[in-house]
C-alpha cells in the first residue's frame, strides 16, 4: 500500500450523486504534505477522504476544530491557500498544486503552543478581558502585544500580485437568491412567464439539498436541471451569493470563480471575484435552511457533525465521515443520515431519537486505545498527530442516565435556521414559531420581495416546488394564488443539560452567554457584544438561534421577547477587491503637457491635473514675466459656460457682489461663499453674448463650483432658465503675461483691436488667435503685469502655444510654471483659496470686503455675514515682510502673542526675486492688522522672529499701474 493510497482510506466506492471526477486525480499540499484530490472535491473533502479530522484551531482556546457543516459556513474549516487568507475550505474546490495550510497556529496544527490558553480556560470566560490587565498603565502596550499575537486570521501575502477584480451591472426582471428546488422552480416559472431571470446559487451546482438526497431526489433534480437549461431567459450564476438588498431591489451579488461559468478559475488574467449590481423588479428569496448545531458539552470536538454535513460528505464526495457513529435525530434529515451512514459502511452504534424523548449529555474525548488505532490507520508517528490535530476529537458520547457509548462520529439533527437576512434587509422582522421551533419570516415584505422554499415553510417536495412556481409567476408580474406553505411541528432543541459552544468561530459557549446575562448584559444585543457571539466570520448564520435560546433561557423570557440580532449586509463576505472593482482615476493632462515635459518641466500632480511645476529656474521665470513676456499653461483653470436669460440671477445668488446689468464684453471678479459665509471659490466671469457668460474657477474649485451652481438650479430655482456646461477641458488656456504681452498678441490676433482703449483691463473678446477662430481672450492681470488669458479649442492648444513661443522669440518669451505663478501672485498680494483661506475664512477675513455687497437682497452666505458680531472680530489677511529679508518662514508658521496665544499664521511665504527679499501673506488678529505692527512668528524649531505688517497686501506695484498699461 503506497502512502498516497493509504491516504485515501476513507474514500467510498462510487456514489450515485457524487460530484468528483475519479478519472483525473491530482495532489494538493496540506501542512507541507501531499494529498490526493479529484476535480469536484473541496479542500476539506479531499483531506477528509484521507482521514484528516482537524483543519483549524479555535480562536480563544486554540482547540482543534473539524468538519461541522461541510459547507461554506463551516466555522472550523477556514484555511490559508497560498497567499489568500480565510479561505472556506469546506466550500472552495481543490485545484492541482494548491498549497493549503492552517491559520493562526504556532508552530503547527498538531502541536499548537497557543493551546496553553486552554489551561487557563476557566479564567477566560466571557468578558474576562475587561476585568484584568488594567494596571500598571506602563504595561498596557505589552498586554496589547500579547493580545494581538493571538489574532486568529490568515496571513496577507507579503508581496501581493496584482489581481483582477471587476464589476458588472445587470437589469434582470427577477433575481432568484438560491438555486435549490424552490429557487430552480421559481426561476423556470418566471422565465416561462416571459421574465429575464438571474438565478444565483451559493454552491458550485444547482440543486440544493436534492444533490445529497436519495434516488427520488436525484431524479427530481435531473428534471429541474433540464427545465432550467431549456429556458433561455435564465442566467445561472453559481458560486455566487446575493449578499445585500438595498432600497428599490438594488442587489449586490458576489460572484466567485466557477468551472464552466462566466468566471473561470486559473489563467493569467482570471477574475478573482466580481461584484454584480442588479436592479431587479422582483427578488425571490429561496436560500433554503441552515442546519442548526446543538449545544452540549464537547460539541466543538472534531467528529461532531451535523446531519447535512454527513450526507454531503457521503453523497457528494464519497467520503466516509467516521467508523462508528451515534446519531441524535429529531427530523427526517437525521433519519436520512442514518440510512446514508449504514449504506456507507459506518457502524451506527446508536440512534437517539429526540422525538421519542431521547437526548445526549456530552461528547467525550477518545480513549487512548482509540487514538492509537486512529494513528495506526494513518501510518503512525508525528504525522498522524498532525493530521488528527491532537487528542481533541470525539471518542464517545454520554447519554442521560450516564450510559456511555464509544464512537468517533457524533451526528446531530436538531433543527433549522431560516437565513432571513435578505428579507430583514427588505424590512421584515422574523418571528419565532414555537411549533416549528424556528424563526420564520414575519410577512412584512417590501414590494417586489418574495420568499420561497424552506425559508417560508415545510412540506413535501412536490408541494414546495408547486408553490415556488406560483411565486415565480408572481415575480414575473403575473397574477395568481400562492398555495399556503404548511408548517411542520419540530421538537425545540437548542441546548442539552450541559453547556457547549454556541459561537464556534468566536469560541463563545452557552456558559459565557449565561454568565453575561447574570452580569447584567441581559438583552440579546448586550450579550452579543459582551461575549462576541454571532460577531465572527459566519455572522450568526449558525449560531443566532442558539444564542437567542440561551439568552431567553437565562432571562426567563420567551424566544420572541428576546428577539434576534439584526442581520446586516453583507450576507456573504465579499472581498474589498471586488467592492472596489477596477479603479479608473486618470490624471488629466492639458494638450501642452507633453511640450512642457519635453522642455524640462517638473510635472506636479495637483488634484486631478498634472501641471508644469517649473522649467529649471523659477526665479528666472518670474523675472521673465516682470521684464519681458511669459506663457503659462492654465488649462486646469475651471471654465463653465452659462447660457440663458436667468444667468444674471444665478450670478447674483452665488457671488457676493452685484452682477445684473453688466455690458457685453465686461468681466467681473467675484467671490463665492458657502452657506456658512466661508470663502468657497473666487474667479472672473465675463459676458460674451446677450445671454451667454463664461465663468472661471480655480483649478481645484471646478467640480465644487459646478455642483454648487447645479444644486441651486435644481433645488432652489428649478424655474430659472440657465444651462451650465463645463468646458474646462474643451479649451486650452494660456496666460500671456508681461510688459511685452500686447506686442506678442498683436502678432497673432486677428479681428480684435488690442489697443488699451478698445480692449481695456477686465474685458473679454472673441476672435482668432494664430489663425484659429473662436478663441476667447480675457484681459486679466493676476500676475500684476499687462496680460491676456487666451482660451483656444483644445485641439489647437499645442499649435497656438508653439506658435506663440516661435513668434515671441525675439521678445524674450519664456514659459513659466506653477511655482513662478505662486511667487507672482504673492508679490501682488493675491490670495489663493485653500492656502490663504481655510474652512473658516469669511471674505472679510480674506480682506475681500470690497467684493461683499451686503446691501444686495440675498446671496449664498449673506445671512451669516450680516449677523451680530460679523465683520469686526475676524482675522485679517495682510501683507507681511520678515524683519530679516533673507528669512523665508515655512508655510504655515503660527503668529503668537505671549507664550501660547495664537493670533494668526503665515499662510504664504516665498522669496521674491523681483524685490530680492522674503515676502508673506498672513492671517492676523484684527488688533495686529495695523500697518507697521511687528508680529511674532514661531518657526518650526520654536525660535521666534519678527515680521512687519505692510500697508498693502501687494508687495510690488500696489497701485496696479503695470497691469493697466
Amino acid at each position: 500500500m503506497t502512502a498516497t493510497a493509504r491516504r485515501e482510506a476513507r474514500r467510498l466506492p462510487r456514489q450515485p450523486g457524487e460530484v468528483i471526477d475519479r478519472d483525473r486525480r491530482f495532489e494538493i499540499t496540506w501542512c507541507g504534505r501531499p494529498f490526493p484530490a479529484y476535480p469536484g472535491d473541496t479542500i476539506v473533502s479531499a483531506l477528509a477522504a484521507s482521514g484528516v479530522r482537524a483543519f483549524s484551531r479555535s480562536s480563544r482556546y486554540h482547540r482543534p476544530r473539524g468538519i461541522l457543516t461541510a459547507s461554506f459556513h463551516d466555522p472550523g474549516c477556514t484555511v490559508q491557500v497560498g497567499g489568500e487568507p480565510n479561505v472556506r475550505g469546506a466550500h472552495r474546490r481543490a485545484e492541482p498544486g494548491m498549497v493549503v495550510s492552517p491559520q493562526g497556529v504556532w508552530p503547527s496544527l498538531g502541536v499548537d503552543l497557543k493551546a496553553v490558553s486552554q489551561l487557563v480556560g476557566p479564567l477566560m470566560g466571557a468578558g474576562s478581558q475587561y476585568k484584568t490587565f488594567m494596571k500598571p498603565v506602563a504595561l498596557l502596550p505589552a498586554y496589547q502585544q500579547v493580545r494581538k499575537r493571538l489574532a486568529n486570521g490568515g496571513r496577507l501575502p507579503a508581496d501581493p500580485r496584482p489581481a483582477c477584480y471587476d464589476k458588472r451591472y445587470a437589469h434582470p426582471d427577477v433575481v432568484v437568491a438560491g438555486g435549490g428546488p424552490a429557487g430552480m422552480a421559481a426561476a423556470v416559472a418566471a422565465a416561462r412567464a416571459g421574465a429575464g431571470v438571474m438565478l444565483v446559487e451559493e454552491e458550485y451546482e444547482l440543486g440544493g439539498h436534492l444533490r445529497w438526497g436519495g434516488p427520488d431526489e436525484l431524479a427530481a433534480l435531473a428534471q429541474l436541471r433540464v427545465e432550467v437549461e431549456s429556458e433561455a431567459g435564465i442566467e445561472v450564476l453559481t458560486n455566487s451569493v446575493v449578499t445585500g438588498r438595498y432600497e428599490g431591489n438594488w442587489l449586490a451579488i458576489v460572484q466567485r470563480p466557477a468551472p464552466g461559468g462566466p468566471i473561470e478559475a486559473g489563467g493569467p488574467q482570471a477574475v478573482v471575484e466580481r461584484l454584480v449590481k442588479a436592479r431587479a423588479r422582483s427578488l425571490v428569496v429561496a436560500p433554503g435552511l441552515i442546519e442548526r448545531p446543538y449545544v452540549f458539552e464537547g460539541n466543538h470536538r472534531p467528529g461532531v457533525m451535523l446531519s447535512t454535513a454527513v450526507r454531503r460528505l457521503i453523497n457528494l464526495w464519497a467520503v466516509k465521515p467516521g467508523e462508528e457513529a451515534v446519531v441524535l435525530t429529531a427530523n427526517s434529515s437525521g433519519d436520512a443520515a442514518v440510512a446514508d451512514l449504514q449504506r456507507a459502511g459506518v457502524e451506527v452504534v446508536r440512534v437517539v431519537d429526540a422525538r421519542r424523548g431521547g437526548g445526549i449529555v456530552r461528547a467525550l474525548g477518545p480513549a487512548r486505545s482509540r487514538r492509537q488505532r486512529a494513528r495506526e490507520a494513518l501510518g503512525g508517528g508525528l504525522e498522524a498527530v498532525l493530521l488528527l490535530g491532537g487528542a481533541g476529537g470525539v471518542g464517545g458520547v454520554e447519554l442521560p442516565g450516564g450510559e456511555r457509548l464509544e464512537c468517533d462520529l457524533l451526528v446531530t439533527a436538531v433543527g433549522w435556521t431560516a437565513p432571513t437576512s435578505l428579507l430583514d434587509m427588505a424590512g421584515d422582522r422574523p418571528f419565532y414559531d414555537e411549533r416549528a421551533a424556528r424563526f420564520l419570516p414575519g410577512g412584512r415584505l417590501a414590494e417586489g420581495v418574495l420568499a420561497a422554499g424552506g425559508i417560508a415553510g415545510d412540506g413535501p417536495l412536490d408541494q414546495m416546488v408547486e408553490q415556488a412556481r406560483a411565486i415565480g409567476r408572481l415575480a414575473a408580474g403575473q397574477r395568481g394564488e400562492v398555495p399556503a406553505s404548511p408548517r411542520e411541528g419540530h421538537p425545540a432543541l437548542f441546548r442539552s443539560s450541559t453547556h457547549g459552544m454556541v459561537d464556534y468561530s468566536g469560541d463563545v459557549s452557552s456558559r459565557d452567554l449565561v454568565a453575561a446575562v447574570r452580569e447584567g448584559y441581559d438583552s440579546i444585543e448586550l450579550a452579543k457584544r459582551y461575549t462576541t457571539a454571532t460577531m465572527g466570520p459566519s455572522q450568526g448564520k449558525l449560531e443566532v438561534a442558539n444564542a437567542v435560546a440561551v439568552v431567553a433561557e437565562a432571562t426567563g423570557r420567551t424566544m420572541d421577547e428576546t428577539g434576534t440580532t439584526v442581520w446586516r449586509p453583507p450576507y456573504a463576505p465579499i472581498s474589498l477587491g471586488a467592492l472596489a472593482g477596477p479603479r479608473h482615476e486618470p490624471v488629466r493632462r492639458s494638450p501642452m503637457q507633453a511640450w512642457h515635459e519635453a522642455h524640462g518641466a517638473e510635472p506636479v500632480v495637483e488634484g486631478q491635473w498634472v501641471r508644469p511645476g517649473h522649467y529649471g529656474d523659477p526665479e528666472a521665470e518670474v523675472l521673465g514675466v516682470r521684464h519681458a513676456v511669459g506663457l503659462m499653461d492654465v488649462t486646469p483653470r475651471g471654465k463653465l459656460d452659462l447660457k440663458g436669460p436667468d444667468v444674471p440671477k444665478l450670478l447674483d445668488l452665488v457671488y457676493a457682489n452685484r452682477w445684473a446689468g453688466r455690458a457685453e464684453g465686461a468681466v467681473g471678479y467675484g467671490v463665492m461663499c458657502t452657506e456658512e459665509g466661508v470663502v468657497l471659490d473666487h474667479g472672473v466671469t465675463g459676458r460674451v453674448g446677450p445671454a451667454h457668460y463664461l465663468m472661471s474657477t480655480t483649478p481645484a474649485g471646478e467640480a465644487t463650483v459646478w455642483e454648487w451652481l447645479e444644486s441651486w438650479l435644481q433645488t432652489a430655482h428649478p424655474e430659472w432658465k440657465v444651462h451650465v456646461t463645463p468646458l474646462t477641458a474643451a479649451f486650452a488656456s494660456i496666460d500671456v503675461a508681461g510688459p511685452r504681452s500686447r506686442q506678442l498678441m498683436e502678432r497673432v490676433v486677428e479681428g480684435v483691436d488690442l489697443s488699451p482703449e478698445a480692449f481695456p483691463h477686465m474685458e473679454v473678446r472673441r476672435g482668432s488667435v494664430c489663425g484659429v477662430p473662436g478663441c476667447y481672450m480675457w484681459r486679466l492681470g493676476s500676475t500684476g503685469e499687462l496680460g491676456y488669458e487666451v482660451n483656444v479649442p483644445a485641439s489647437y492648444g499645442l499649435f497656438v502655444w508653439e506658435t506663440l513661443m516661435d513668434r515671441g522669440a525675439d521678445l524674450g518669451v519664456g514659459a513659466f510654471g506653477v511655482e513662478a505663478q505662486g511667487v507672482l501672485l504673492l508679490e501682488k498680494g493675491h490670495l489663493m483659496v485653500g492656502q490663504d483661506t481655510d474652512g473658516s475664512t469669511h471674505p472679510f477675513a480674506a480682506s475681500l470686503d470690497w467684493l461683499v455687497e451686503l446691501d444686495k437682497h440675498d446671496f449664498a452666505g449673506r445671512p451669516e455675514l450680516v449677523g451680530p458680531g460679523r465683520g469686526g472680530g475676524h482675522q485679517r489677511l495682510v501683507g507681511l515682510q520678515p524683519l530679516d529679508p533673507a528669512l523665508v518662514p515655512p508655510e504655515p508658521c503660527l503668529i503668537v502673542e505671549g507664550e501660547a496665544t495664537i493670533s494668526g499664521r503665515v499662510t504664504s511665504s516665498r522669496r521674491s526675486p523681483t524685490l530680492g527679499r522674503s515676502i508673506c501673506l498672513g492671517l492676523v488678529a484684527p488688533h495686529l492688522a495695523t500697518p507697521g505692527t511687528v508680529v511674532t512668528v514661531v518657526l518650526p524649531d520654536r525660535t521666534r522672529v519678527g515680521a512687519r505688517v505692510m500697508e498693502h497686501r501687494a508687495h510690488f506695484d500696489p497701485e496696479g499701474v503695470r497691469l493697466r498699461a
Partner: protein
Amino acid sequence: MALASSAWTEPTGFTGTGGREKDGVGSTKAESRGARLGRVARAVGEATRPRRYSAGALVAHGVTGRPWRPAWRHHELGSTYDAVIVGAGVHGLATAYHLARDHGVRKVAVLDKGYLGGGSSGRTSGIVWSNYLTPEGVRFYDRSLRLYGELSGELNFNVMFSPRGHLTLAHSDASLRAMRWRAEVSKLHGVDSEVVGPEEVRRLVPLADVSSRARYPIMGALYHPSGGTVRHDAVNWGYARAADALGVEIHQGTEVLAISTAGDRVTGVTTNRGEVSTPVVVSCTAGWASLVSDMVGLSMPIITRPLQAAVTEPVQVLLDAVVVSGTLDVQVSQTDRGELVLGASPDPFASYSMRGSLEFTEEVAGRVLQLMPSVAPMRLLRQWSGLCDITPDLSPIMGPTPVEGFLVDVGWGTNGFMAGPAAGQAMAELVATSRTPELMAAFDLARFAEGRLVEERDAAGVGH
C-alpha cells in the same frame, strides 16, 4: 437576572435540582413578567458595590465557579430625581458618573429608549485623538484623551485604551501645509503631533503604498503618537457599572416622550414607563438631539447625517496605527482580533436612516485599496450606520439653554466618542454648580446667534 441576584445570598453557587436549574437559569412559568422584574429589582437593589475586578478575582471566580455580580441593576422608575439624563451612551453615563463621584449628586436617572450604549456610542470605530485645529478643540480633546488613558484604572474596567498612534496622511502640498498648521497648534498646547515624511510613514504603516506610483502619493503625514483606539462598548459598560455602584439608576428601554415645563423651567419628563419630576434634564443624545430639544420648543442648529462603517474578516495583525486620509476620505485601523475597521465621513445628506448602503462599501473599499493595495483579498464581514448631529462649525453645543434646567451636550458630529470623558466631567460640574467650566465655555449655544463660531472644519473632517 433573577438568579444572578440571588447568588449574592448564596455564595456557594447554585444548588438547584434539575439539570437546567443547576445552571441557575430556570424560572417559574406562572410568574408574570412584570412581577418577575419587580422581584429582580428588589433583590438587586439590596446589593450596592460590585466586587472589584482584578486578576486575583478572576482566578477566584474561575476556580470556584462563582458567578460575578451584575455590573448594574434594574430599578423601578422613581418619581423624583435631582437630575435626569437622556441617553445612556458615553456622554450620558460619564456625566452621571461624575455627578455622583465628584459632586455627590446621586439621585440621578439615566434614561435610554434602547439598551445602554446602543446608539452612536455603540457604533463608533472607537478612535481617539486630540491634535485638532482650534485651541478650544485641542484643549478639550486633550483632556479627554488623558482621561481615557486613566479610565481603566479609574473605572476598574478594562476599556482597552491603546495609544497605537494616529496618522493623518497628506497627498499634496496643500494638505502638508494643513498638517503643519495643526502640528504647530498642537505643539503650542503640549499635544504630541508632528509632520513626518514618507519614509517614516512606511515604517509606521508597512501596508501603505508609499511609492510615487500611487494615484495620490503619500507625501507625508501628521503623526500623533498618543492617539489610538479604545474599546467603545467597554467604555459604556465601565461607566455604567461605576455609576451604578455610586447609586445612579440606569433605566434601559425607557423612552422620553415629553419634557414638561412650567414657564421657562423644566419640571419633569414623561416616559413610556411613567412620569418623573426633576428640575434638571440633560440631553446627551446623538442622532436625536434636535428631536429631544423640540420637546422644550428649542430649535438646534443641527443636521443629522448617517455615518457608516464596516469591518473585514480578521487577518494576522499588520497595522498598528490608525490611518486617516482626508483626500481619500477614509479611515482604517485594525483591531487586536485582526479585523480592519473602515470608516469615512458622514453621508452627504440629512437622514435618520441607520441602514448601510452598498455605495459606501464600494467607495470605502476603493479608497482603502488606494492606500493599501495588499488588503484586496480581505473580505468585508459587516457594515453598519450610526447617526451624527452636525453643527455649522463642526463643534459641539454644550451648556445651558434658554429653558432653565434643560442642558445640552449634543452636536458632536463625528467626535462624540472621543469627547465623552471630558464632556461628562464638564457637564457634571455645570449641573452641580450651575457654573460653566472654562473648558466648555466656547461651545455654548448662544455662539450661533452671536457669530462666535469655533471653526474645527479643517480638522474634523474624517476623524471619528
